[in-house]
């Protein structure tokens, strides 16, 4: 029994090394001069911050950070607001056409984005929203998945509570704000985390809609920096920009890890 336990720990620790080492390697490599990065030694011999200086010189990464905060902030807020009011109207109010709308919202999750990618871009061009942060926000400001999650959560709230609030003269919005929301914190947290992570990391859509550097989001800027040779092939600078991009999500993850794991695991339900 004892030897079995040891074996389990050995495999788990090897796993931990495999998942953690590339990140640790990245962190130390950003403090190495380029010639040293290929070195198998983990710690730098000559510590340097030249890679970070190079990143700041070449790309407006601070601007990229702000753009990403704006886009992610707006999208997350909108998805929570519109997802919850739609989820509420699709679960706790009876009206004609409700079930049809719910079926369509499920259908939107089944249609692969490869179909809508090009036509949505054309729509954005027609609205004159290319090179505009609104072009990144508007297409994803409400999602079928958030509606589904809110609807499932709202369905568990006892009808008596809702009836009581309605009898007290609450409007439907009032019921949502005073009764439903306080009881649905887990659903709100889940939707917020999923939307935050997905949008912070999104890079395909920004690459299509934004061409002007001062409007680029952080992942887009870092991706183009790595691919376009803006880094002058400096590996250290590429890694430094990648580290800056990873930091906000990693910090949020380490603080709220339980919620992160639970929320992202719930995407498994999608299928």
């Amino acid at each position, binding site marked *: 029994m004892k030897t079995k336990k040891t074996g389990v720990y050995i495999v788990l620790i090897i796993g931990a090394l495999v998942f953690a080492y590339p990140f640790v390697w990245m962190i130390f490599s950003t403090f190495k001069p380029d010639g040293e990065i290929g070195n198998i030694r983990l710690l730098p011999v000559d510590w340097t911050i030249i890679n970070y200086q190079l990143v700041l010189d070449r790309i407006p990464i601070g601007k990229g950070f702000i753009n990403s905060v704006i886009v992610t902030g707006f999208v997350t807020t909108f998805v929570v607001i519109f997802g919850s009011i739609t989820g509420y109207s699709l679960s706790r109010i009876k*009206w004609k056409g409700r079930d049809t709308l719910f079926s369509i919202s499920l259908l939107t999750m089944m249609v692969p984005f490869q179909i*809508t990618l090009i036509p949505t871009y054309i729509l954005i061009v027609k609205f004159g929203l290319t090179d505009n942060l609104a072009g990144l926000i508007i297409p994803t400001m409400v999602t079928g998945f958030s509606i589904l999650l809110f609807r499932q959560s709202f369905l568990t709230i006892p009808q008596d509570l809702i009836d009581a609030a309605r009898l007290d003269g609450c409007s*439907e919005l009032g019921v949502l704000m005073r009764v439903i929301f306080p009881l649905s914190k887990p659903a709100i947290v889940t939707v917020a985390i999923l939307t935050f992570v997905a949008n912070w990391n999104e890079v395909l859509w920004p690459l299509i809609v934004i061409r002007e550097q001062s409007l680029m989001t952080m992942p887009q800027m870092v991706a183009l920096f790595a691919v376009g040779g803006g880094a002058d092939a400096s590996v250290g600078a590429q890694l430094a920009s990648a580290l800056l991009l990873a930091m906000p999500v990693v910090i949020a993850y380490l603080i709220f890890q339980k919620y992160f794991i639970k929320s992202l695991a719930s995407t498994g339900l999608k299928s």
Partner: protein
Amino acid sequence: MKELFKKFNPGFLLSTPYIIHLMLFFIYPVIFSIILIFNRWDIVTPMEFVGFKNVERILMDEVFLQSIINTGIFLVLHIPLQIVVALLFAVLLNEEIRARGFFRTLYFLPVVVSGVVVTIIFQQLFSYDDGLLNQLLQTINLPQIPWLVSSAWAMPSIALMATWKNVGLYIILFMAGLQSIPEQLYEAARLDGSNTWQRFYYITLPMINPTMVTVFVLSIIGGFSLFIEPYVMTGGGPMNSTLSAVLYIYNQAFNFGHMGYAATLGLFFAAIIFTVVSLQRKFVETELYQ
């Protein structure tokens, strides 16, 4: 506002923003993508009706075929690797162990980090001359591997990286699946004189089938959505060996201005995703309660 709520059902009113969004960003794009199939268009000059030219072209397009083969190679390596690794760690983490939370946090870390970050890290680890992986191979006297520079190895390398990035999610899903198996089943099997392997094969595997299906579906969708990894690492090369479905759509639309053809590609890829997902439902999904 009050008037409005009297005139219309409040349920309908609360859904109106979503209905408008749905019409603009779902119904219109789906219809427009069908129109685009029959047209040639570069967005700048007027649209030109070409009949079935786009469809004919796709059927003759060797690069399109190549991108499907690439995705197939990716999936054939990615799915089994992911299932084996995720299941192994899920079983181990379900043992009575210390620091379970610590291990779980670490394994899950790559899931939340941007694909851009992971791609930039692995581009260096995969480097032929001074990458960490080849240096490790050298120290144990194995030949170096041309990870990203050979057309035979490039896609498998990306599949390996994608497994590293995603497997944490499936470890969590498999752990939940394993915990839902009633202990009595194992007890009963033990009394019947079964061995560990038999219990795994006849109880564990069928009971975690729903998680298995999730891994398949998400991997298939993920394989056909692959974009930033080849975009940053290889540009689709060498010799189109890492050209993914989405990268090909992207190139056709935004490098060559072939909106009609790109939309046609999108529809074909979506049809393939649909077919593959329903096929796997047939073969992978088993009825639990017959």
